[in-house]
């Protein structure tokens, strides 16, 4: 694992050279393909070196984060064209990637906390530094203080665990059972805020609306998954107390997911619609993690990966429209099928995978999550049904508003297509197909081994 870390660290000087924008991006792609071919062991951790290791959960999430980071650079090409501190932007992305990489791969709970928090700073810089409106300060403060409020007790919890067990190695935590309520709350609350759970989700739509495209992509793609990853890691030694208290989180997140899905229908801003939809999807992930059965575990993992791909893709598409029309309002963006017919295919593919239509990885995840939650309680069927239905509903709502209908009459001039977007779309396609096949394949493997 050190080799990738060093590769990223030595990419930092490259960020500060002139005209190295695309080179950095290509290096990230290259690194992602190197990482993809890492020797993969399904059942155990592997590639342990120095202080980091990798198991199947970390592997997927690291792969996702390298991938999203390189796509982020690609999508914010306008920074390079406008010369808007793009050197520092590259540095920021690489720094963020290093922090994310270490968060997903470190062996030690305290180091996990450290890098978990450290990934917040570059994200904050992305939002406040490269955002558009003055309201981005408020959004950044919401982001910072919601997450810090949750994660400072997490530090207390981690140090308490160290004092109690004399180990902070994540791998060894499975031999312990900590049956304490306050510890439980302090350990999971940070992750629930990060996910975000229904009551503490307010920072997410705000941050998404104010963030530049790269900030939105990393937020939806990776930041939310940090919470899921943390929950998957800490659940293992909190099993007994979680069995007593999990109904709270499941009920809050499922009912909240329903409310949020309905709220999606009231949105007129593309980005905030996508942001709310990701809150709704993450609510199912929380449910799946909290019921703590095998379906839930696999399903939440798969839905995290697939949601990271498809929601960041949707944010990228929303930004393409925004750069053309300088508005994210659904009324102004309507009828885009007339102008960008080939873009409407991408909107269709990404939205169909957002609503978990058949060929997508989201379907796999949602099937597993529905299985797990129904096995937990039959009553949750009603909520799950409504959430699934509404997710199809708001995806269709977004699609039909943007693509169909009359276009905005006030459009004066409009340029359609850059060659670089073709590349983005092609890469997105590759990842989409590749991840689908690979995901289903792994799923098959895991189930068979079990």
């Amino acid at each position, binding site marked *: 694992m050190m080799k990738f870390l060093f590769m990223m660290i030595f990419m930092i000087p490259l960020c500060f050279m002139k005209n190295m924008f695309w080179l950095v991006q290509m290096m990230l792609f290259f690194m992602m393909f190197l990482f993809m071919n890492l020797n993969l062991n399904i059942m155990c951790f592997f590639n342990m070196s120095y202080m980091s290791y990798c198991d199947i959960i970390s592997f997927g999430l690291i792969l996702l984060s390298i991938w999203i980071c390189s796509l982020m650079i690609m999508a914010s090409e306008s920074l390079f064209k406008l010369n808007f501190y793009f050197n*520092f932007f590259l540095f920021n992305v690489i720094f963020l990637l290093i922090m994310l990489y270490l968060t997903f791969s470190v062996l030690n709970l305290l180091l996990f906390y*450290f890098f978990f928090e450290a990934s917040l*700073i570059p994200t904050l810089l992305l939002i*406040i530094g490269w955002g558009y409106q003055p309201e981005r300060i408020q959004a950044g403060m919401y982001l910072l203080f919601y997450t*810090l409020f949750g994660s400072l007790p997490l530090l*207390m919890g981690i140090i308490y665990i160290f*004092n109690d067990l004399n180990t902070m190695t994540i791998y060894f935590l499975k031999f312990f059972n900590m049956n304490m309520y306050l510890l439980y709350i302090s350990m999971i609350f940070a992750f629930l805020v990060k996910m975000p759970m229904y009551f503490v989700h307010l920072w997410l739509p705000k941050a998404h609306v104010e963030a530049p495209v790269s900030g939105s992509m990393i937020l939806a793609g990776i930041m939310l998954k940090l919470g899921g990853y943390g929950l998957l890691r800490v659940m293992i030694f909190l099993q007994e107390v979680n069995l007593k208290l999990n109904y709270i989180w499941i009920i809050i997140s499922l009912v909240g997911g329903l409310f949020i899905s309905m709220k999606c229908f009231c949105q007129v801003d593309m980005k905030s619609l996508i942001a709310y939809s990701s809150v709704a999807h993450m609510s199912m992930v929380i449910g799946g993690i909290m019921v703590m059965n095998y379906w839930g575990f696999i399903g939440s993992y798969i839905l995290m990966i697939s949601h990271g791909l498809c929601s960041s893709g949707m944010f990228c598409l929303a930004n393409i429209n925004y750069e053309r029309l300088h508005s994210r309002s659904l009324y102004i963006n309507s009828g885009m099928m007339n102008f960008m017919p080939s873009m409407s295919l991408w909107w269709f593919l990404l939205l169909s995978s957002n609503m978990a239509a058949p060929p997508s990885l989201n379907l796999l995840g949602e099937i597993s999550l529905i299985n797990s939650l129904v096995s937990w309680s039959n009553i949750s069927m009603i909520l799950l049904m409504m959430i699934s239905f509404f997710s199809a509903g708001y995806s269709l709502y977004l699609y039909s508003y943007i693509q169909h209908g009359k276009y905005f009459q006030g459009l004066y001039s409009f340029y359609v297509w850059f060659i670089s977007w073709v590349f983005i779309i092609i890469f997105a396609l590759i990842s989409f197909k590749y991840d689908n096949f690979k995901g289903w394949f792994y799923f098959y493997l895991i189930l068979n081994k079990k």
Partner: protein
Amino acid sequence: MFFFILINNNSNKMFFLFIMFFSTLISISSNSWFGCWIGLEINLLSFIPLISNSKNLLSVETSLKYFLTQSLASINFLFMILIKFSLLKNFNMNNIISIMMNSSLLMKMGSAPFHFWFPNIVEGLSWMNNFMLMTWQKISPMILLSYYFNKNFLIFMIIMNLIIGSLGGLNQTSLRKLLAFSSINNLGWMIFSIMISENLWLFYFLIYSMMIFMMISLFFLMNMYFMNQLFINNMNFFIKLNLLINFLSLGGLPPFMGFMPKWIIIKFLLINKFYFLTFIFMMTSLIIIYYYIRIIYSSFMFNYFKMKWMNLLMKNNMLLINLSSFISISSMILSTFIFM
């Protein structure tokens, strides 16, 4: 360079500066309470000439206020050591006497319930004098505090420090007052650390003074005293970045150096089972981060509506500051690699 800034290019002040350093050493190394008191008095009398500045009208008032509060505290201290000498045997503890002694020392260092002089005096001092007031002047009272303290009283004072330091800075616009309140908050951490061990205190104190030195020297070089000056000056990008990193570091956010002392103190708090106190420590540091971020709004936003006519003609040639902010970024990460 630092000394010349400190003494304002006035060689007479050099004398008082060295006396000041010397007096602190007297008081922390003397083996009788009376010697400690003498050191404190010399310290007071040598700091007052350093305050005086013919260009600043406030400096006379400031030195008077400083003299009054400090001498009040010294008199109390003297009175209490005499009472202790006459009433108690050598190693006896007495609640009332220890509380009185501690409170006189707390007043000397500007700790919370006796802090009212501190933000006022800070307003009248130059940046470098502020630096001395916030760091060096706290050494001797704090070391003396560690000799003879009342634990419950000090824990109560720590909570007061944390809360007042964090809430007091919320509505301020003067950078000096903000740093004063942040130093009151940090005093809570330092008093706790000196209750645990002197090495821990030294660690916290050194890192805190280093961070505050970076900020103060930056503000000193840019001539900034109020928050709106940060917005109307057209700052270099790297200066903005330094400001940003140093403030986040002082706030104790993880990838920066300032996290390390806070983390270690939290560790000691939890080893000693101060769970509720830890919670207060953390939540007040959240508020502290809030007002630090208010200071660095202008550096967070890379573009905002600037008034173009206030160009600050300062190149980024401050090797010292760049170096220190580099330390601030990297030392934490490097140290994690070392300790693993």
